[in-house]
């Protein structure tokens, strides 16, 4: 995608991902975030959660990739990225949780494009105020 071609209202996706307990373990290792509520059922329940939940930063980090692809495969194109964690993503041991993301262009200013992200798990909104500013190639 080139900046000159992006228009307010353009849509990206929807794209779906399945997060499994194995993905949570892999993210814990890669990120250094070993909070047991993401790894252990008992620890999650002791913390008052319905079960093991995904790291908020795994959800945030996962759903941005369709925008990287849209920006031409350059991860450095994502200049700003903000989310509010509205609801935990519960990841059952059997089958995991399905995340769905859809982006919509809300502003174009020169080569900078703002995209709002709608992110759901099992049909419920899990991120609020999710927005990225992407620097696109000019021409």
């Amino acid at each position, binding site marked *: 995608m080139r900046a000159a071609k992006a228009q307010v209202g353009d849509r990206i996706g929807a794209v779906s*991902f399945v997060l499994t307990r194995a*993905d949570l373990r*892999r*993210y814990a*290792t*890669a*990120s*250094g*975030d070993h909070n047991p509520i993401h790894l252990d059922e008992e620890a999650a329940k002791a*913390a008052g959660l319905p079960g093991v939940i995904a790291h*908020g*930063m*795994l959800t*945030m*980090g*996962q759903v*941005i*990739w369709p925008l*990287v*692809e849209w920006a031409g*495969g*350059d*991860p*450095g194109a*994502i*200049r*700003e*990225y*903000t*989310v*509010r*964690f509205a609801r*935990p993503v519960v990841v059952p041991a059997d089958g995991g949780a399905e995340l769905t993301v859809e982006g919509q262009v809300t502003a174009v200013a020169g080569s900078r494009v703002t995209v709002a992200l709608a992110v759901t798990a099992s049909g419920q909104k899990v991120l609020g*105020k999710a927005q*990225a500013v992407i620097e696109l190639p000019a021409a």
Partner: protein
Amino acid sequence: MPVNSSFVGRRYRSAEPYLVGPDELRAFAAAFGASAPACCDPAAAQALGYAGLVAAPTYAVVIAQQAEAEYVRDPASGIDFERVVHGEESFRHHRPIVAGDRITTELTVASVVERRGMTTVTTAVQLSDAAGQPVATVTSTLVVRGEAG
């Protein structure tokens, strides 16, 4: 113990720079099942104009969370990590992080706001490179549930 609001404005600087290694960048991108060549293949990163592998868009959190841990684990901060949930996260990049960067951090406790038994703590971590130039700002909001909650 309530969250200590007198910490607002306090700063924590990293003792040592954080060396960003290529294997770590590959593993972090792989954790999302991401196949972006610029995160894994130096030639692909160079084709996009980078000196080394490019970090995934949220990689800065790995560095920022070390600075946040220093504050949160400070007993005088009054933050009980067992009662913390992640409220918001924001990244603002001045430039992408690339393999070989040596990143220093400075965390500022931006605000501590108590409301209806919940305390919202916001921190801002400035990441800078070896030349002292700003790389990214990572803003994080934690929500600490009250004793009775």
